[in-house]
């Protein structure tokens, strides 16, 4: 077996040094009835690279790839172009095959890129501090609510109806078992929700997404003031990180915590994971934050360096009193995100954001001309919602048969909500061409 360096001679010699006759003797503490006499039944024997490649490639070939079709899906995961440099450099073994940086003297590479990542996320979100990542946007959202509960010593969270339903559900799962309450509104495809009226003296936080799951862009300033007046925290959710290159960041609008999904930069769609949870907050809440934090310090020779810090919040030190149970997070995804953002730089990132918006505006223009189709959004970034006047999931399935991946039917996101059957959420990015848009417009035109 190609991955196992020990030879039969090595094994014999090692057994002799230990003073046992066989490996079986080393397993003598396992109840005899539970020890298998040989390789487990029902699984194949080992395979060479070629066989593995054949088998997995056959499975991969059964999927329709985003790049092979006019493609308009968003809904919390976006298809962006990732520079070749990113995927090449994250595969350097020194990044790829290192563990969490517990020994800082030989983990400065990881620690420095995570420090840079924290700095970038703080800039993007307009917040004072950011952590070294969470699993994904949805779990970051749920953890932010827990953090708000701890900070305010309250236990009722108000969730916007236009929060991504997976974020809502992930938070609701935690709420059910942790015992906090969530107040959530119905999805509002038109984008006008009155969240202020749901805040009261028991509210720990309001969770609101911008751009929201239907693509509406929100000014959070008034909501932030309303939260502050009632002693609740405002948690802003961003599922499309590229939007932060163009839109006023939540931090500038008064958010207390900003969480988001970082997949848009550097990370492939990969059927939903692994992605990257972004987590930023005002500095005064730092001791309630979940996750790893990297801090700057100096070494014994006075040279600048970085370490894991404020660990007294974390499970390996505080155990049941920790701010979160999180341990492994999304280190390599944070590297990909950070590297993509470094490559873009200020000029590239802001241009990319404008390019995305321009593509979506163009798509809206092309679709807006179609008879029987209505665009619901006044404002949007790179994603908006259309009413196709008939069941959107059927339209999507029909177009998929013609080789067009048309968007996300609202019923896929909200299977239990009424009145959404005809709605389709469509996104455009820098990858979307005019030909793609024309194909979608033509396809829709023929069906409607």
């Amino acid at each position, binding site marked *: *077996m*190609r991955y*196992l360096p020990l030879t039969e001679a*090595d094994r014999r010699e090692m057994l002799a*040094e*230990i003073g*046992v006759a066989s490996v079986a003797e*080393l*397993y003598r*503490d396992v109840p005899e009835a539970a020890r298998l006499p040989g390789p487990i039944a029902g*699984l*194949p024997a080992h*395979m060479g690279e070629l*066989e593995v490649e054949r088998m997995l*490639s056959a*499975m991969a070939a*059964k*999927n329709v790839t985003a790049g092979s079709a006019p493609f308009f899906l968003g809904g919390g995961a976006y298809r962006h172009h990732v*520079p070749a440099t990113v995927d090449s450099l994250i595969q350097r073994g*020194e990044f790829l095959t290192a*563990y969490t*940086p517990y020994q*800082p*003297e030989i*983990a*400065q590479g990881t620690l420095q*890129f995570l420090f*840079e990542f924290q700095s970038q996320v703080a800039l993007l979100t307009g917040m004072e501090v950011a952590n070294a990542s969470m699993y994904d946007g*949805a779990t970051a959202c749920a953890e932010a609510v827990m953090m708000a509960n701890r900070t305010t010593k309250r236990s009722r969270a108000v969730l916007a109806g236009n929060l991504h339903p*997976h974020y809502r559900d992930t938070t*609701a*799962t935690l709420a059910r078992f*942790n015992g906090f309450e969530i107040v959530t509104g119905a999805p509002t495809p038109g984008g006008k929700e009155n969240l202020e009226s749901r805040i009261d003296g028991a509210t720990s936080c309001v969770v609101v997404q911008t751009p929201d799951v239907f693509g*509406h862009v929100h000014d959070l300033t008034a909501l932030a003031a309303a939260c502050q007046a009632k002693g609740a925290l405002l948690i802003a959710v961003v599922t499309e990180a590229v939007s932060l290159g163009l*839109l*006023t960041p939540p931090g500038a609008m008064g958010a207390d915590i900003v969480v988001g999904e970082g997949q848009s930069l550097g990370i492939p769609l990969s*059927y*939903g994971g*692994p992605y990257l949870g972004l987590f930023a907050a005002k500095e005064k809440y730092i001791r309630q934050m979940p996750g*790893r934090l990297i801090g*700057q*310090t100096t070494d014994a020779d006075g040279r600048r360096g970085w370490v894991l810090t404020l660990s007294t919040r974390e499970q*390996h*030190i505080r155990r049941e009193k920790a701010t979160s149970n*999180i*341990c*492994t*997070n999304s280190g390599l995804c944070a*590297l990909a995100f950070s590297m993509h953002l*470094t490559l873009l730089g*200020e000029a590239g990132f*802001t241009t990319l954001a404008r*390019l995305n*918006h321009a593509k*979506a*505006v*163009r798509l809206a223009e092309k679709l807006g001309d179609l008879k029987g189709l209505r665009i619901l959004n*006044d404002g*949007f970034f790179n994603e908006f919602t259309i009413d196709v006047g008939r069941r959107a999931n059927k339209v999507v*399935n029909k177009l998929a048969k013609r080789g067009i991946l048309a968007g996300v039917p609202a019923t896929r996101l909200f299977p239990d909500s009424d009145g959404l059957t005809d709605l389709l959420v469509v996104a455009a990015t820098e990858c979307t061409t005019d030909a793609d848009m024309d194909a979608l417009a033509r396809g829709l035109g023929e069906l409607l």
Partner: protein
Amino acid sequence: MTSATTISGHQGLQMDEPLIFELDSPGSSGVDLPPPPKVKSRLGAVAARNGVGLPGLSEPEVVRHYTRLSQKNYAIDSGFYPLGSCTMKHNPRLNEKMARLPGFADVHPLQPVSTVQGALELIDTLAGWLKTLTGMKAVALSPAAGAHGEMCGMMAIAAAHEHRGGPARKRVLVPESAHGTNPATAAALGMTVEAIPATEDGRIDLPAFKAKLGFDVAAVMLTNPNTCGLFEREVKALADAVHEAGAFLYCDGANFNAIIGRVRVADLGVDAMHINLHKTFSTPHGGGGPGSGPVVFSEALAPFIPLPAIIHDDDGYRLIETQDDDDGTALAFGRMKAFHGQMGVFVRALAYSLSHGADGLYQASADAVLSANYILAKLKDTFNAPFEGPCMHEALFDDKSLKGTGVSTLDIAKALIDEGFHPMTVYFPLVVHGAMLIEPTESESKRSIDQFIATMKGLAERAKTDAASFHAAPTLAPRRRLDETAAARKPILKWKK
């Protein structure tokens, strides 16, 4: 001892590398984008922002920056990384290649199910492997890491108790040697945690557990093999007692690598166990993730899984995202995260499984256990082993032999850095004073292990006469010891102008 000084600040292959913010050439970019078409902005109520404040670098500068950073990292690819409890085994590059097939990497999670049949087949195939390897009834694939899997397993247990009715069960018993994530997870779910001390031989105190069991106990969380590297011989008796009390046995599967392919946890009476694909199944840790923590469930817990689930029937593969009687998900408890799990990690884990096969896994776990016992045998006269062997996949030593030398476990770790090794896990488990937990995995050659053993013996010898050299270590790494106290006292968590 101070480091050699140079004019440039570099030292041979070790390049002193500034932060990206200090390399800023305003206006530069490493990406050429077309100018955005002129359109009428439709942002609505929100104003466009006036800059972000990011630095600008060209592509060559970016490549150099990250290459230099990478050279400051120790990794499995560079050397022996015996970090106990972390299973730093070889990460095959075939896995990377497979995860990057466009059919897996370039697929959106909300595409019509008819267009992702291969993705669902892959997940279902991996699920089959995990169920067969553990003998368990069901598996939840969506948890994103080990601690997330623990949370999923404990949620399933809470849901099962809730469904059965009866008085609330809020107590959770854990051995004192448990990973910190166990009590943190239970506490996050509103449960109270009681730690039970171990016996003299480093294992669970069965009578103590039995005495604490009662009808208000939700679960016992057990790590097996435990964090002392020992197999819990009385696991079956514990499971029986736990079940008799109407509670469930949760197993922390972080140490699954010791028994994979040789012992099925279903045969030990376990009700739920998470599996760290980023440990046992060789998917890369990437400096702290991403991971993946699928949870296998016994018959009793199988209905109480999170969503989504995958069903394979005459219509092909279906993704079940809502509770449904017909799909057998009426008691499922909802989402753990967005979308369907860590697909990129699943591909790597399946590539690993197929490469090993049943025979390869049977050999791999044996090699991991053999190598740990070899280290235990060769070092037990030099360092003190607090517990009698055989051990499983990791060898545990305490700091007794260092007493009076002025050298601590931490000093040994830092001296190992200068010797070109990654230190073992230190000061964990907490039940052993100055713990050194060494996990070689099956990926090390005998030559590599022998070199480590010789180095450890040499360090032990030097500790008797030259404590000062230990206190100065490391001197040959990219940095010497870093001031963690100062970092925590006045946190600097981002770059400032």
